């Protein structure tokens, strides 16, 4: 495997890890709110969260490119803030992927939170746990399988991301040329053996990680 391949793999891992971490921070409160609110905004917010799903990645990438470009709304904002432009940078990929993978984090988490029900949180409250405390000490551990599913889906989905990255990444080695793009490049260059090799590495690596994750997977907890 070439240095470029290794670089692409490493970039992919960094991107997926960053996006998963950010989405755990962003998606968890959203999922929690959706799971427990009775607000009439619940439906619309759910739909908005799910929207990135139905947008084809290349289309999403195109519109993100327009939005984050020098004439786009986001682009003007980031420029005004002195952040420069997001497309064609690692930061841009992260922002786009967070947006793109949001539903993969939120939906499984929401289901997991809903499955907990009210009672454990009521019990926690009677045992002096503030809502925040109960969230971390009861809801989060009880939703552990959901967190696992959500994180695996998010991480994997980011690793497998292609259309968005191709559009707003610009295929820059070390910054935006992730493994999926690199393999695609190999394929487009008709360099099949190289493509096979990198794909195999990605596959074996992913399989190993998944196997480890599932071996450690917390058993679903039954009511007590």
């Amino acid at each position, binding site marked *: 495997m070439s240095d470029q391949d290794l670089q692409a793999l490493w970039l992919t891992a960094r991107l997926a890890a960053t996006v998963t971490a950010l989405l755990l921070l962003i998606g968890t409160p959203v999922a929690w709110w959706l799971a427990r609110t009775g607000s009439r905004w619940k439906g619309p917010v759910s739909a908005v969260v799910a929207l990135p799903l139905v947008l084809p990645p290349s289309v999403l990438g*195109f519109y993100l*490119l*327009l939005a*984050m*470009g*020098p*004439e*786009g709304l986001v682009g003007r904002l980031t420029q005004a803030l002195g952040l420069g*432009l997001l*497309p*064609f940078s690692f930061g841009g990929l992260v922002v786009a992927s967070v947006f793109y993978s949001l539903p993969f984090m939120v939906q499984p988490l929401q289901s997991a939170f809903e499955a907990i029900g009210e009672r454990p949180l009521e019990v926690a409250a009677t045992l002096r746990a503030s809502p925040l405390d109960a969230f971390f000490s009861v809801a989060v551990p009880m939703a552990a399988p959901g967190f696992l599913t959500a994180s695996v889906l998010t991480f994997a989905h980011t690793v497998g991301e292609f259309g968005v990255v*191709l*559009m707003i990444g*610009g*295929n*820059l*080695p070390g910054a935006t040329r992730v493994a999926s793009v690199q393999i695609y*490049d190999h*394929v*487009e*260059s*008709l*360099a*099949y053996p190289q493509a096979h090799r990198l794909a195999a590495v990605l596959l074996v690596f992913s399989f190993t990680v998944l196997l480890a994750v599932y071996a450690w997977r917390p058993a679903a907890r039954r009511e007590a």
Partner: protein
Amino acid sequence: EKITIAAAADLKFAMDDVVTAFRQTNPGDEVEVVYGSSGKFFAQIQNAAPYDLFFSADIGYARELAKAGLAASEVRPYAVGRLVLWSASLDARGMTLASLADPRITRIAIANPRHAPYGQRAEEALRAAGVWAQVEPKLVYGENIAQTAQFVQTGNAQVGLIALALALSPELSARGGHALVPERLHQPLEQGFIITRRAAGSALARRFADFSASPPARAVMDRYGFVLPAGAAGR
């Protein structure tokens, strides 16, 4: 110094060799090439993509960018592409466009005529040869010319209309022969490049642009079947 070049997919092998040649004479410089479809590069450059030179498969894209003020140079033609019939499973050497009507041929790959220059020319040629009506139901469309070649190479399409440059590449020439599609059957595949606005101050970009018109580069291009467009020599 460092530059990034966006190049159309049909240039893949030729440009790699040009860059190798350039590096030999300019060992201290870094040149990255990104290949893709010209239409996507166009959209990206409009949105400030960090490409210093853009080698388009259709000179039209380059002209559009220049018109929009996104070029730091005039539009320079650098090659005229050629279409060939190529197959991995059949012997394409004796084929003509008329052979495509043969009912034993069920799948024919061309690039998407809507946006890939090679696709547009392929359609023109098929129409001009009078086989469009028979051939059209058998067509499958690749996103760009490289993907079109892939369809054929994997055997999913028996024949494809691809770039001569690709058919001459080591990967494809080993698998099957090709037959040139007569130039008169379609508009010329005029290809052009620009230095983008962001590279306006880049000496390296200029040097590479100049190098690409230099004899060593031309030799490489010739090897891949890219003829120099009439009147472009010496610029």
